């Protein structure tokens, strides 16, 4: 048997089993996406709540910090007693793992909004809800999105461990590659996972740029006002930033999958 280079082996492996790689990539995205969505739905409102109940903040953030420090494999192991084995367990562990940056950044971002702006907004007749949605959250957005970016990269990276407790995802390839000492299989799992994480991060970065006041002002100047012809009070206009980011989150996780699929095809 002739010694073949790792590259050859990798290409051959990918060419032969790209349907499996794609399927696992999709699973990986699914696990990470659900975990992130749950994290955002829980943690952004929680962060907002904490700014209104300052006394609780150190305890909640401390608790999130504790989950953060438990080694992820051990956390997955503990959760077997609660969720059994499989994807649910993995998703729960990922949520616990990703909580800290989102809660903390929501909290800090909101707290850093200058009180004079809040007072001015109140003095002009904004309701507390409008102050949150139109002043505090938009101003906290850069910090908030930075937290979400950290959480996203962690979740996509850590999701590979789901395979260790019977879940799916690209971790399967990595673990089976490890077990059979086949580096090309490990690579076939690791490379797409890395690409996914980087792409998701880049998408969120672009999103943040898109919404930054500078680009937004330029866009407005070019296109004229894009704002809907609705008063801020009307019910339809209640676009919570949390929803916004989630949608974008989905968009972000969808687009890498598309890109990744085309990549897979290219390789094949």
């Amino acid at each position, binding site marked *: 048997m002739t010694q073949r280079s790792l590259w050859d082996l990798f290409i051959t492996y990918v060419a032969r089993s790209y349907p499996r790689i794609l399927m696992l990539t999709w699973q990986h995205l699914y696990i990470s996406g659900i975990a992130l969505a749950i994290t955002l739905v829980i943690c952004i409102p929680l962060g907002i709540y904490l700014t209104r109940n300052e006394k609780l903040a150190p305890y909640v953030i401390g608790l999130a910090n504790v989950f953060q420090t438990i080694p992820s494999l051990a956390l997955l192991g503990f959760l077997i007693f609660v969720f059994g084995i499989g994807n649910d367990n993995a998703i729960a562990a990922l949520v616990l793992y990703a909580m800290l940056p989102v809660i903390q950044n929501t909290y800090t971002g909101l707290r850093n909004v*200058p009180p*004079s*702006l809040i*007072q*001015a*907004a*109140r*003095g*002009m*007749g*904004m*309701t507390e809800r*409008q102050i949150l949605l139109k*002043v505090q959250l*938009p*101003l906290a957005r850069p910090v908030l999105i930075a937290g979400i970016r950290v959480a996203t990269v962690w979740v996509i990276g850590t999701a590979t461990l789901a395979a260790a407790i019977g879940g799916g995802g690209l971790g399967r390839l990595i673990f089976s590659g490890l077990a059979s000492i086949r580096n090309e299989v490990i690579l076939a799992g690791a490379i797409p996972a890395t690409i996914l994480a980087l792409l998701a991060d880049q998408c969120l970065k672009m999103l943040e740029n898109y919404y930054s*006041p*500078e680009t*937004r*002002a*330029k866009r*407005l*100047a070019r296109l004229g*006002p894009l*704002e809907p*012809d609705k*008063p*801020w*009070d*009307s019910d339809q206009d209640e676009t919570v930033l949390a929803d916004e980011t989630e949608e974008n989150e989905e968009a972000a996780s969808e687009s890498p999958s598309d890109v990744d699929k085309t990549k897979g095809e290219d390789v094949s």
Partner: protein
Amino acid sequence: MVEFDAVSKVYEDGTRAVDALDLSIAKGEFAVLIGPSGCGKTTSLKMINRLEECTEGRILVDGKDIQDVDPVTLRRNIGYVVQDIALMPHLSVGENIATVPRLLGWKKAKIAGRVDELLAMAGLEPKKYRYRLPDQLSGGQKQRIGVLRALAADPDVILMDEPFGALDPLSRDKLQSELLEMQKAVQKTIVFVTHDMDEALKMADKVILMRRGRIEQMGSPEEIQENPASDFVRNFLGEDRLAQITPDMGIESLVQDPYLRVLATQKAAAVLDQMEDLNLDTAQVVDDKGKWVGMVVPRRAKALARDGGTIAKAVRKDRRLNIEEATISDAAAMLADMDLPVPVLDGRGHLLGIVDSSGIARLAIGRLCRKGGETR
């Protein structure tokens, strides 16, 4: 248009920030509330749009008791200009101006028309400035936008809380003149807070000079200048301030807000950070009731910050002035000894403000400007 009927604001600790204030401001009148720091002028202003609630008496706006109006509705119908301008940095100039009209649910076309009209009125070309961000404007332009924002929904009453306080003298003078021109055209009822007597005399139809929550004197600028009701008024007017300075004069007119005021329970490290951010050498520490605890000494605070202690232990208490007893010569002696702000306390130990060398410099500058600037 705006009436105060025996209005008091009493805090939980018993401080009477505003004491039985009776005041009537007619429609179209430009009323200026003026007085030293802590005299209750800003509190009185904020009670009109219920950012502060009055605890006794009642306030009528347009004949209606404001307690019967929903605060949000009330505020949307009263223009409000704040000291630190507070334009929303994430919104364009146009959107900032459009804030209240949007809250009121105006149609898009109407809002756009109104924004352009206001920008043109302030001499800012709409096409050029509509989509700028506040950060891309100069200080004077920002405050113009702040005023336009308050005018946007065409309210009858406009409140202005030291709107030009943060500007350099040149732009301040320019904006004052512009505001007067604008007022001639729009004839709003304006309640304006300042601590600058020149500004008050220039702008006001009616000057309301306050001291310790009460009205010391009220009248047209001419009346006040010709017949000051007391030494305090005379002192505050600053007529021949330099000539009149005697070593045993009170320090009331020198008192200004402390640059940084922190709670005794705050961590020393956090206070040091704040001081560093603001580039200050000192800070005043108060307890939760407003009672003065001491003045921060950075050297001791740094040692405490390493041990994670609260700021209360890093203060000195010996350097202070009592508003009722201290004279200008006392203040000057302390400042000559050490050029750091001196805290000023009232009889019950509450922090009123500080006196520093800039206050004494202001006395001199005020005098010199008046000499040279008779043309104003």
